[in-house]
């Protein structure tokens, strides 16, 4: 997600990561300073996110050992642990492993001594260097942290060496570091990091910390175990839903049944009579019921009688919206890209192909429904949540609660999935929790807990869209022109990121379409930006969720029309894109593209770049005579630059494939007369284990700077499956979701 924001900062990335001098300013001098041997943080509530200790679940009985800060990212404990401040949200993508790996590598630490904890909200120290604010998205966590954490680790190592040199009275150059051990010569003197921590924190950080050469990496590129596996395997990992504060009330909110509706009036007499219910308060987003437990609050909400005002509501259904979008397919849209003369070519062509595509609204449907704890205090406000845009959440909670932003302390918790859902420009559920806490004047801490139904009907969907694809062919079946017209809502309009919209074009609507890599002389991409009252948001891979499907499925359609092999035609038109070509060829080779398949089975391939990573996937499907089909196997090749932890990269590809396949097969949010029809997992039916194909992931070796893996596995899977189904049946699938069968 946050693709466009990613792009704004792309120049910064391409110009080279920030200079070392800037780094030192950011991470060491202007930030935390040096807290020498202090017994506890100024802000002790930050959670230890993960530990590398063996299977024992019990937290240590003794108070935490004294820790010395080397810089804003690295603390070394007297107990010889190294704790890395994680400025990003962990929502499963592995940041509590990947980011500490980078630090450990440059420190020459032992993996077993590494720990992770979530950083507080502090944009000065912990901003995403591609966003300018603290936040997670666009598959940028590793990419934006790469140089920053390498330098943080290298600086900490240097300070430990300085401390050892001073204590031992030897030149720094005589000291080596390996596996968390400082050593003089052949072992005349030895010390752990922990033993030198307090002294090291008092050393002057180096202006230009020396970084390792990639050939000297011992952790990066290897499979170190995830730091969060233990806590997530014994039930002890703390998600927002698990947070309890003394005297806390649990709130559920009656939201309007249509987007944009408001409260006309309500009768809370029965709700207040429910055992455990303490308060019923109106807030700008509905009516909140507070109680001593979730169950009581839920019963209270059931007894609540609210009359809604639908004057400003979106009262249409998705059928009507699709009709409106389809009309737009007959009109030229705003020009996003125009190479050559596609309009002219299409007007004059003797041979052309046209196809229309339709994509529904999609819910993120994270396993943990949205939730947030807000506690107002005399000197500020504490927020416990899986915050994905800490700076934005901090500012909005400050506004609602009448605090200064720096008085709002955000305690980031593990998130039970996000896929973009927890990065909301208006802070959505975080704001809602703050409104409720304010409505009871901060009398008690408040946990806002959404039910599954609240979550499913809470909007912030992947926008629906229609696409019209047209191409012309010459006598040999070569593509001579390509025109791609898209109608969809803008995600960025009306948000603090609206400034990224240029000339009326929100490029998150067309990313993947206007960046089409194929060598086609006449190529045009047009956009109709649609407006309606259904709130939309980035959803794992954002615009690529639909553009990759439309472009890659239409490509196969055109190849077949021209009598070309889809893989060969891709190879021919990607000659100047070596990274696309490499993943394409690797996936094809590993899938045995040239090997015959048994009757009823077929393969399809798709390749797509997103978030600066390149992924190709080959799908194998089996289609029965009655049209029922299964997706049996996905072979994936990925180029994400340096793979910090290849096993985490594989996990993200597996997960991205499952998430994309789930949407392709069955997911859709539909509205009738403005009301969302799907309420829970019986109606919105994600992929289950019996439908998950075998997945093989192959990583292209690379020395390029690392790029993201959270999202790029998702876009190619749906088109790869559709292309396999086209190979089996000869028919192109233009409307998603596909469903459980195809017309054979």
């Amino acid at each position, binding site marked *: 997600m946050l693709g466009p924001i990613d792009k704004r900062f792309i120049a910064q990335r391409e110009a080279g990561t920030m200079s070392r001098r800037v780094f030192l300013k950011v991470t060491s001098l202007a930030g935390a300073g040096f807290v020498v041997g202090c017994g506890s943080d100024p802000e002790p509530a930050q959670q230890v996110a993960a530990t590398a200790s063996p299977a024992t679940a019990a937290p240590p009985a003794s108070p935490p050992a004294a820790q010395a800060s080397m810089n804003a990212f690295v603390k070394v404990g007297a107990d010889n642990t190294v704790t890395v401040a994680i400025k990003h949200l962990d929502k499963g993508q592995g940041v509590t492993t990947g980011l500490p790996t980078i630090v450990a590598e440059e420190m020459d630490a032992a993996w077993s001594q590494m720990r992770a904890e979530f950083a507080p909200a502090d944009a000065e120290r912990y901003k995403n260097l591609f966003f300018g604010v603290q936040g997670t998205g666009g598959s940028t966590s590793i990419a934006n942290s790469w140089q920053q954490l390498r330098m943080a680790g290298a600086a900490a190592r240097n300070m430990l060496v300085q401390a050892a040199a001073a204590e031992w009275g030897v030149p720094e150059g005589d000291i080596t570091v390996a596996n968390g051990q400082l050593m003089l010569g052949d072992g005349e003197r030895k010390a752990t990091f922990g033993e030198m921590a307090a002294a090291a924190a008092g050393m002057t950080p180096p202006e230009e910390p020396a970084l390792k050469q990639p050939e000297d990496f011992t952790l990066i590129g290897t499979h170190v*175990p995830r730091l*969060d596996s233990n806590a997530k395997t*014994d039930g002890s990992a703390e998600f927002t839903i698990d947070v309890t504060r003394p005297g806390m009330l649990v709130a559920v909110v009656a939201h309007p049944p249509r987007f944009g509706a408001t409260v006309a009036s309500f009768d809370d007499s029965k709700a207040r009579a429910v055992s455990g219910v303490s308060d019923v308060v109106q807030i700008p987003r509905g009516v909140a019921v507070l109680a001593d437990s979730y169950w009581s609050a839920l019963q209270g909400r059931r007894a609540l009688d609210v009359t809604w005002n639908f004057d400003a509501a979106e009262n249409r259904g998705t059928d009507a919206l699709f009709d409106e979008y389809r009309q737009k397919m007959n009109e030229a849209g705003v020009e996003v890209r125009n190479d050559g003369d596609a309009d002219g070519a299409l007007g004059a062509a003797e041979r052309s192909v046209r196809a229309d595509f339709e994509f529904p609204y999609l819910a993120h449907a*994270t396993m943990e429904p949205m939730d947030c704890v807000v506690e107002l205090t005399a000197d500020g406000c504490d927020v416990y949540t899986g915050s994905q845009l800490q700076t934005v959440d901090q500012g909005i909670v400050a506004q609602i609660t009448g605090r200064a932003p720096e008085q709002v302390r955000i305690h980031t918790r593990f998130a039970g999935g996000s896929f973009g859902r927890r990065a909301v420009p208006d802070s959505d559920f975080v704001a809602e929790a703050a409104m409720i806490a304010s409505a009871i004047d901060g009398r008690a801490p408040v946990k806002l807990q959404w039910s599954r139904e609240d979550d499913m009907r809470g909007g912030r969907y992947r926008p629906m869209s229609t696409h019209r694809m047209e191409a012309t062919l010459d006598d040999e079946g070569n593509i001579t022109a390509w025109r791609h017209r898209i109608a969809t809502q803008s995600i960025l309009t009306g948000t603090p990121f609206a400034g990224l919209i240029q000339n009326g074009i929100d490029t998150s609507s067309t990313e993947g379409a206007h960046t089409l890599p194929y060598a086609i002389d006449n190529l045009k991409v047009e956009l109709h930006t649609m407006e309606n009252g259904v709130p939309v948001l980035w959803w794992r891979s954002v615009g690529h969720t639909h553009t990759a499907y439309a472009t890659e499925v239409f490509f196969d359609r055109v190849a077949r029309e021209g009598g070309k092999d889809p893989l060969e035609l891709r190879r021919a038109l990607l000659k100047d894109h070596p990274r696309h070509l490499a993943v394409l060829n690797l996936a094809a080779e590993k899938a045995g593209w040239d090997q015959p398949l048994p009757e009823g089975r077929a393969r399809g391939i798709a390749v797509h770049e997103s978030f600066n990573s390149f992924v190709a996937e080959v799908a194998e499907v089996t289609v029965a005579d009655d049209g029922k089909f299964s997706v049996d196997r996905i072979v994936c090749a990925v180029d994400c630059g340096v793979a910090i932890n290849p096993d*985490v990269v594989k996990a993200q590809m597996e997960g991205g494939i499952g998430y994309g396949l789930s949407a392709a097969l069955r997911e859709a949010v539909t509205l009738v007369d403005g009301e969302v029809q799907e309420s829970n997992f019986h109606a919105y039916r994600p992929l289950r284990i019996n439908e998950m194909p075998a997945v093989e992931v192959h990583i292209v070796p690379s020395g390029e700077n690392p790029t993201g893996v959270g999202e790029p596995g998702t876009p190619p899977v749906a088109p790869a499956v559709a292309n396999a189904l086209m190979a089996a049946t000869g028919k192109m699938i233009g409307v998603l979701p596909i469903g459980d069968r195809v017309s054979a």
Partner: protein
Amino acid sequence: MAINLTVNGEARSVDVQSDKPLLWVLREDLGLTGTRFGCGIAQCGACTVHLNGQPIRACVTPATAAANGEITTIEGADSAAAAAVQAAWRELDVVQCGYCQSGQMMSASALLAKNVAPTDADIDAAMQGNLCRCATYVRIRAAIHRAAEMLEG
């Protein structure tokens, strides 16, 4: 009303509404937050616990219905099958966001307790009630096979 429960081998007494689901009694009244809420209608399996060794969905089971049985949650899962499942989960780094994994492991350990060598079809049948939006399914399957090996070894 007062309800007496046996949870993870300990006798516990709570005073709650008669219709309060076991899930919320475990989480809110007994502080056992490792069992998670996902849907409230037995469609996702995040709340899976064992009642007398059988996997049940705690979100639709009134606590009163569990009063005479032995309840086991992730915090007290210490059978041979549960230990093997947790070890295999760690060995293969199954987790991503981790939210559904308590329920996944409770379903998996119930499967292995009665079937020490499950086939893929057995795994599909036993595990398809447990959703994972991170789609860690490939590793869940592999980890169940690995746990079966450990139990055999």
